[in-house]
């Protein structure tokens, strides 16, 4: 049996990688992948706790997260496509129309 904190450490590492990627990369697709990475890091923590506490709650939550992530991917990819068509670029630094 692998101890729970191994999973947690792995989860934290994946989450940290996601954050770093999100902050430092410019390509929207990459940012999107970073978000997926963070979501799955959280999912991993959920499953680990579910296992260690012997309760199904965490696994149920993971299913929810996956569903939401799928919906988000659908919408997000739509936005990305439109952005790419309108701006001919996938650089987030050029998507700043909301700036004051």
């Amino acid at each position, binding site marked *: 049996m692998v101890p729970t*904190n191994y999973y947690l450490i792995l989860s934290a590492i994946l989450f940290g990688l996601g954050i770093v990627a*999100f902050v430092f990369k410019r390509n929207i697709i990459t940012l999107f992948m970073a978000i997926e990475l963070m979501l799955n890091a959280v999912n991993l923590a959920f499953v680990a706790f579910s296992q260690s506490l012997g309760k199904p709650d965490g696994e149920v939550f993971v299913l929810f997260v996956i569903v939401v992530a799928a919906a988000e991917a659908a919408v997000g990819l739509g936005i990305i496509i439109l952005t790419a068509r309108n701006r001919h670029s996938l650089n987030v*630094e050029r998507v*700043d129309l909301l700036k*004051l």
Partner: protein
Amino acid sequence: MPILEHLWIIPLLPLLGSAINGLLGAKWPNKFITGIALGSTGLSFACALEAVREFLFVYYPANHQAFVKPFFDWIVAGNFRAGFDLQLDQLTVVMVLVVTGVGFLIHIYATGYMAHEGGYYRFFSYLNLFMFFMLILVLAANFVLLFVGWEGVGLCSYLLIGFYFLRKSAADAGKKAFIVNRIGDFGFMLGMFLLFRAFGSLDFQTVFAKAATWQPDAMGQFGTLTIACLLLFMGATGKSAQLPLYVWLPDAMEGPTPVSALIHAATMVTAGVYMVARSHVLFMHSPTAMYVVAIVGCATAIFAATIGLVQPDIKKVLAYSTVSQLGYMFLACGVGAFGAGIFHLMTHSFFKALLFLSAGSVIHAMGGQQDMWHMGGLASKIKVTFWCMLFGTIAIVGFAPFAGFFSKDAILFAAYQSENGGKALYGVGLLAAIFTSFYMFRLIWLTFFGEKRYDEHQVHVHESPGSMTVPLMILALLSLVGGWLAAPALWGGPNYFADFLAPVFGNAEAAGGEATNSLELTLSIVAVIAATVGLIVAWRMYSGKAARGTSTGLHKILYNKYYVDELYQAVIVGPLVWLSQNVFWKVVDVGMIDGSVNGIAHGTEALGDTVRHTQSGNVRSYAVWVIIGALVILAIIFWPLWRPTFFVATSRGVR
């Protein structure tokens, strides 16, 4: 008892008239407005007569107490209740009849006087509103409702003084009246609060019943009742134009003459006298306050009379005369002769309304001229006005058998008999009577006799229309017979007026008694001699070729009204304006209030300007903020676990 049970009808009718004329009258022809105004006041007078009949002949013989009826609750808070309660007793009977009766006559007169003036509907709307508030004032059964009427008549006074509001002097006079009254009202309110604290109620019956059981304050002792009485009297000095707050009344002559007659002579200014008489139970328990009332009244009587001696404006003379006569009324109240004070109030309302209306008729005849030095020789041209004015003059001066003789005589007699320097009060009062006689006959001579001092080609002197002369004649008749109720007292009979008021004032009235009848007769003769002296002096000075004298010495001081206005200007108004301008406006308002409001706005703007740079529009920088926020939250959550036990905590977490 149909009307007595519905006393509210009496004040409500003028209110209705006021509302109809005020809201709808602007486009109406004058005769509709006249109909509404006269109809409402006339009906009110008729209702008042009927209510008085029911009270005197049905209610009072059966119950022997004042008629009090609560109509609805107005303010209820804890134990405190102030209701719309109306009261009718003998004192109120006198006041209600004077207000509605004289008021009705003056309304009739005003329809003639104001016929060619603009704002006809506005004038009658205000005048009816005044009647409403004045009736509330005299019918009120508690101090709070009385105060409503008290403030209401002040408002109407303001509106009517400033009726010709395009004229700056009129607008200023209105403001002056309002502000000076406010000073008095401040005292009045404090007095009410004190009474409420002492008695837990402001209903007349409760307060007076409780106060009657109190031990009276000694002379010079400032107990609760004395202080309350002095504060109430402060309100009375404002409303009734006594020293030192009389300054607004002479200026109030800027209003149309019927207003001067109704509000500033016959009714409103007597509200203070009424209030003091109404609170006589309180005043009887505080000899100090009584003494102050007597002295202030006496001082005002002589003070205003001396100013009246030299005024050139016919209405100003009458205004100072009013102040002086109000002083007499307070003198009467101050020496405990409340009945005499109310008696003089009634007769004064007859003859002073008559004098003002006659003066209005003279001004009307002269085409707006008010300066007596531009009149003269009018007696033969406006006979009716002349005779009415002469009646009023004889009445105010106090020749028998006119009304003023009896009422002034009663006051001087009561003053003579009072303790604490009554002889001095009497002497000053008598001197004021001589002055009264002088300035009134001076007015008669300057106006009606002597040579013409106006240009006949420019002024077409004409008698006033019937709507003006008929009320004059009625008032002249009242000035003649109004005092006869008290006449039998002179030859030892009963004083019917005093007896009538006895249920209200009870033992407060110092009973004359048989032994003093000869004294009273002597004093009456002295008073008549005094009046004759004034008459003769005025005749000697003004019957011949009268000319405006040079103003020097004492004459100049009197002509300038003792420089009281200038004094107030320098001592009170000037510093107040300076303080308001340089401190309250430029420092407090601009610096602190505007400064703080604007400062908050500027601060917010500057902060926003700084912080808006965080809103870069760059998604990744937002993410950094989110991360920083998350780290901060984590730090706060785990702070207790970090410090020395950090490793212990983590190792426990590991398990």
